């Protein structure tokens, strides 16, 4: 059964005030279009969880959607800091909960596996344990050193962008995999956004590439260029210029408001946003072809 809906409807149905949202993607496949739609719909009091909050959460915090962030690295990758997160924490206006990358994704791994917690070896760096009581120590029941555990994270909704999916939500992903799969399996609901909607036969032609199965997906949205200014491997490049420009855009309330008015509230959807970026940006983000060698899965018919 097709789960195709537009992104507006998907956000209306599955993202509610007060929810814990995990917009997945480590640098790659970050679903910015969904972040913009959540802002357009005026969601409030969200708990925003991501290993790297990145520009998507800095913008959502700036737009007033968030009560709390859960993260493991709150920088602008390769550029500097995320101003709204940093100041929200410094000024005490934003709640936060902090992990290392491994702690954060171990929480998702536990959530995705139906476990209450996930064990990790000690790192000797006890300060984070001291300030975040969600980190606990347990005795190794088999007699080794004490181990660290972190509790399962089961977000109300995960938003996961993929290269291609069928209309039911079976999805192919390639390139950097980050925590896409763990976030999807951990969440109570999954909104899938895809560069392309393909026939089920395309998915079946390469089942090893199907990282997210339809059974856990609630909504499938066809959203080309959803990840800009992050990227989709093989579709368009990361817009490093925008990541640099964020320093200036995010510098104060007025410049954020101007950005939101023009690029979030000023456009209807991602298609309009992408057109508005213009031919020069499209050209700059174009990627060439580097195809993989096909594999033979084998045919087992009588002929």
């Amino acid at each position: 059964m097709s789960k195709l809906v537009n992104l507006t409807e998907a956000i209306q149905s599955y993202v509610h005030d007060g929810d814990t949202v995990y917009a997945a993607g480590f640098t790659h496949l970050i679903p910015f279009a969904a972040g913009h739609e959540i802002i357009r719909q005026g969601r409030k009091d969200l708990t925003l969880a991501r290993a790297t909050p990145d520009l998507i959460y800095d913008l959502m915090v700036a737009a007033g959607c968030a009560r709390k962030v859960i993260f493991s690295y709150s920088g602008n990758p390769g550029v500097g800091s995320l101003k709204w997160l940093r100041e929200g924490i410094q000024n005490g206006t934003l709640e936060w909960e902090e992990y290392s990358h491994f702690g954060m994704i171990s929480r998702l791994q536990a959530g995705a596996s139906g476990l209450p917690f996930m064990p990790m070896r000690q790192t000797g760096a006890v300060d984070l344990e001291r300030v975040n009581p969600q980190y606990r120590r347990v005795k190794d029941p088999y007699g080794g050193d004490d181990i660290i555990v972190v509790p399962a994270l089961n977000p109300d909704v995960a938003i996961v962008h993929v290269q291609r999916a069928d209309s039911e939500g079976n999805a192919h992903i390639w390139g950097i995999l980050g925590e896409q799969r763990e976030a999807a399996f951990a969440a109570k609901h999954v909104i899938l956004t895809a560069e392309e909607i393909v026939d089920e036969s395309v998915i079946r032609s390469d089942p090893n590439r199907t990282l997210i199965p339809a059974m856990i997906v609630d909504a499938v949205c066809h959203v080309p260029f959803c990840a800009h200014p992050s990227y989709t491997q093989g579709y368009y490049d990361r817009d490093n210029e925008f990541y640099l420009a964020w320093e200036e855009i995010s510098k104060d309330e007025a410049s954020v408001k101007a950005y939101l008015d023009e690029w979030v509230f000023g456009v209807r959807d991602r298609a309009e946003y992408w057109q508005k970026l213009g031919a020069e940006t499209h050209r700059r983000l174009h990627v060439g072809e580097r195809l993989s060698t096909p594999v033979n899965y084998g045919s087992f018919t009588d002929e």
Partner: protein
Amino acid sequence: MSEAAYNATELMIINAARLLQDGDQVFVGVGIPNLACNLARRTHAPHLQMIYEAGVIGAQPERLPLSIGDPTLVSGALAVCSMFEIFSFYLQRGNIDVGFLGGAQIDQFGNINATVIGDYFHPKVRLPGSGGSMEIAAWANRCYIITPHQKRRFPARVDFHTSIGFLEGGDARAKTGVRGAGPQAVVTNLCILKPNEQGELILAALHPGCTFEEVQANTGWQLKQAPHVEVTPAPTQEELRILREELDPQRIYI
């Protein structure tokens, strides 16, 4: 100096590259560590393998990667895996030889703060936080720290242990049971610091033209010196050529 003039960043990259061994499996970040690895691969360590926390193994980037998850890291790589796998199968399991670390503060025992200046709950300056560094510092066989040498970056004690070196020294690190040997060198624009038997960072080598006094003036504790402080060989024309012409021709990092 004119025929082999170099800047502080080039000096740090070249000295970091020289610490890497052929065949090392290196957990690498973008910027200076990435350049150091690529330089080592093009000089003395052609079999060095670059592994990125984003889950990329054996990257051979066609262009200078500008973020830890740059798509150029994936095209032509040997393998790509999830973040959970990179931190568990590769790092926690003990398959990583070298980790690179950086941070706002590095103390006398190689502990690093990348989390907060001041009190954690009422921060004076909030920094990005651990990312992968808490585990890299604990579980990579050896770690290197690359940082400009400024007094504010080298306090006697860090405000927050984001990742550990030798804690308060002695057998404190060993007692935690972490598998890695900890920081083996700190490469700055002035010198190379290395841990002594107590895990205290001491002056091991000066870069050409730098003095102990200069290093001490930029270090927040009474710095000890190795019995024989060496002078690092100046960057060679070939090292500089590879860096400038092949690795970072647009001078983004250098």
